[in-house]
């Protein structure tokens, strides 16, 4: 089986190299086809809260269901009013009020009101199975037909994002069903598209005549099935879809070269991937040792050798997601960059009392050779290349690295229980670096070794950090910015975790039929067809005339 799909990739590569369009996929110019790898045969379920529904696997939830606000994933300081035209945060971020757009209709013609919003959030609260962002609030009430008020138990500025990006469903349809098992085969939403046709191999959407924003310029959206990265490669290479969002590997060779005039890709970081040291263990509890580890890493080599050059090395020691959050970078760190410096690493180790005899291994204070373990899950094979590179780079300071291979389940419980020396970790995502920091540094999410932690897996514990985090949750925008600067200093100076590379949002497109795609010059949205910004992208497209 594995062999077969491996060879299928060779086949796809060959077809990609041959290039040109396969006429069987006669892409007509008013249809935009979007491709999701690993979607597999669809089943007609459009429940936006279930990651297993066709709506989610095809990445089309946001074409049908809409949130209160939209955040530009590429430049999160851009917040677009959507079903809410404005909002207020009161009472030290303990109360949120959303003012809803007037004259919005559901695709069946019924009016959209505050009752729908209240119903949606009450339903999430009653059904933990679909509350995938774990949104918590004391009460949600409709102040009037177009005003909704959320009351939170404690100051929680970051909850606003999760509330505002939740898809709103119509009360008149969902009130009589169980939202966590509802298939929703005939979805009714406020979005620009409605279901046109469903087949296990293909879903088509057509313009919603009731859409509040007017008719979209793309008449039909098409979501052809592809059941693996290899068949997605083939479909994109042959021109069967103009909008893709999977990891091509060598995208230039497999995709761009088939039609270099029109084909493009734009990968932008979505979150960071970091090395987590277990701070309760020697030698990771020594800050100079952690700094020595970081100093001896060449992150560019990881980018190029482990990730085909398409998951970018983190350059800033603040670990900030750049360029996305460049407005959050503290001025004193603007010109600070990671540079591999083995001499500095050796000096740090000597200062911390680590010794070495001749070309022997590094010896700790206890007189034993330093041997580190990095626990990684076997399905994430690119991470093993990362570990190999780390292992060879740490040979300079004579640190030995073992790479135990465990199953995904074991890895997850090892991470949560603190049963690791080193491991790799993918950060949270959100509209600010705060969301990444909070998941990595907030001591309220952690637990003693042997108990399940939901965040701060490396077990960082610092009252100063906790004060900065709670200032952000209750503060004004100016106070929040100052708190973020403080958190950046913590990461730079104390290195509770070691930033490595960014995770990329995969996005390939052809502007042969449609123009107006997001680019680094015009980053109005993140381009990934499965992302939260998919609706924004489609609404920006125009047929090439």
């Amino acid at each position, binding site marked *: *089986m594995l062999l*077969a*799909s491996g*060879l*299928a990739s060779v*086949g796809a590569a*060959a*077809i990609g190299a*041959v290039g*040109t369009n*396969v*006429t*069987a*996929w*006669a892409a*007509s110019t008013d*249809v935009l086809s979007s491709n999701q790898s690993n979607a*597999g*045969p669809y*089943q007609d*379920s459009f429940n936006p809260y*279930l990651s*297993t*529904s066709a709506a989610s696997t095809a990445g089309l939830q946001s074409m049908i269901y809409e949130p209160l606000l939209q955040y530009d994933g590429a430049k999160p300081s851009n917040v677009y009013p959507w079903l809410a035209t404005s909002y207020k945060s009161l009472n030290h971020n303990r109360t949120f009020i959303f003012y809803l757009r007037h004259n919005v209709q559901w695709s069946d013609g019924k009016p959209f009101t505050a009752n729908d919003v209240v119903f949606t959030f009450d339903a999430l609260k009653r059904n*933990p*199975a679909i*509350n*995938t*962002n*774990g949104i918590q609030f004391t009460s949600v009430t409709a102040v009037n037909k177009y005003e909704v008020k959320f009351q939170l138990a404690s100051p929680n500025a970051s909850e606003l994002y999760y509330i505002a990006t939740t898809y709103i469903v119509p009360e008149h349809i969902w009130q009589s069903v169980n939202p*966590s*098992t*509802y*298939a929703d085969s005939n979805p009714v939403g406020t979005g620009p598209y409605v279901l046109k*046709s469903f*087949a*296990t*191999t*293909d879903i088509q959407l057509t313009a919603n005549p009731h859409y509040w924003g007017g008719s979209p310029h793309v008449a039909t959206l098409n979501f*052809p*099935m592809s*059941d*693996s990265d290899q*068949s997605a490669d*083939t*479909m994109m290479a*042959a021109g*069967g879809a103009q909008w893709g969002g999977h990891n091509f590997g060598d995208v230039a060779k497999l995709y761009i070269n088939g039609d270099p005039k029109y084909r493009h890709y734009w990968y932008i970081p*979505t*979150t960071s991937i970091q090395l987590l040291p277990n701070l309760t263990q020697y030698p990771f509890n020594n800050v100079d040792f952690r700094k020595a580890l970081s100093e001896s890493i060449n992150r560019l080599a990881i980018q190029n050798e482990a990730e085909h050059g398409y998951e970018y090395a983190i350059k800033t020691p603040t670990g900030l997601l750049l360029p996305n959050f460049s407005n959050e970078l503290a001025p004193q760190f603007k010109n600070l960059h990671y540079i591999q410096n083995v001499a500095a690493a050796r000096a740090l180790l000597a200062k911390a009392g680590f010794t070495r005899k001749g070309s022997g291994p590094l010896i700790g204070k206890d007189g034993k050779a330093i041997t580190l373990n990095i626990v990684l899950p076997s399905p*994430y094979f690119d991470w093993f290349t990362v570990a190999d590179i780390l292992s060879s780079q740490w040979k300079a300071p004579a640190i030995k690295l073992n790479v135990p291979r465990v*199953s*995904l389940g074991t890895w*997850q419980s090892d991470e949560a229980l603190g049963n690791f020396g080193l491991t790799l970790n*993918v950060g949270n*995502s959100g509209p600010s670096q705060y969301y990444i920091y909070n*998941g990595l540094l907030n001591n309220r*999410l952690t637990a003693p070794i042997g108990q399940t932690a*939901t*965040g701060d897996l490396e077990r960082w514990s610092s009252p100063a950090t906790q004060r900065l985090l709670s200032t952000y949750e209750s503060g004004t925008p100016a106070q929040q910015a100052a708190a973020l600067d403080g958190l950046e200093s913590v990461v730079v100076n104390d290195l509770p975790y070691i930033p490595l590379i960014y995770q990329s949002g995969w996005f390939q497109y052809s502007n042969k039929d449609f123009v107006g795609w997001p680019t680094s010059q015009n980053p109005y949205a993140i381009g990934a067809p499965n992302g939260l910004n998919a609706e924004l992208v489609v609404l920006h497209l125009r047929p090439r005339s």
Partner: protein
Amino acid sequence: MLYLARRTGFYVVTGVIALSINFFIPRLMPGNPVLSLIARFHTQITPKTLAALDVLFGVHHRAGLWAQYTQYWREILSGNLGVSFTYFPTPVTHVIGSSLPWTLVLVGVCTVISFVLGTVIGCVVGWRPGSVLDNLLPLSTFFSTVPYFWLGLIALFVFGGLVHWFPVSGAYNTSVPIGWTWQFVGSALYHAILPGVTLVVSTLAFWLLRMRNMMVTTLGEDYVLLAEAKGLSRVRIMGMYGARNAILPNIASFAMALGFVVTGSIVLEVVFSYPGIGYVLYQAVSNEDYPLMQGIFLVITLVVLLANFLADFCYVMLDPRAREEA
């Protein structure tokens, strides 16, 4: 009649055992559906999402094995196969129902074509061993011993990628609405040609070789000599004396092959991105989707048993010795 009754009893016992194995084997796999879902979405899952998924799939609240087993039999007997995890909240029957027809038509038709073609050619080749037609043997054996995925990929590369005669994936042109229209059926046939032809080419030798060899053996029998001595026509000897006896082992294999049509051809469906049951089974296994796996195994078990039963029945019809035994 006693013979058939005995066989029926045998199949019922076999069925119960097979279905019990279907229940236990998937549960020996490590991991659980939530972990598989996480692997599917490659890391981008927060602890809060994890908690929600645990509740959704009831991972930590599953009943004991015996309770699950009795529940399993209750579900089978009531025809309710539960809800798929991979395609939650879609019922398993729905998932199977939407993928099985594609496989049945493509693999089923190809199996029949391959059997009929192989048997007829084998019969003719076996009638005159050593003739020019014998050259078909090494050629067809070559195609059957080449690994199927390689053959499929080469065909895909040459006819789909280089000369663009055929589409490279899918079961029909997605811009054609589904229905019993000429346009749709034509597009489905067009998409089936490449996987179909490669499947027939790679399985042909199996039937051809067996039929030819049995034919050669049968034609050496005394009753064939007697028939020739009686001056019967050549067609009659080849059909009624040679082929009728030579085909018996092939009938049994054909029944088995028909039974296995429902398993689809996973490699074929992956290489050609064909939306059949083989691919769905692969998905179910890789996502630890117990209800879906059980549902597909149930269908496979029942169809294989049924096919064997029919083969027994055909034997009784074709071979008087089987009747005598009873």
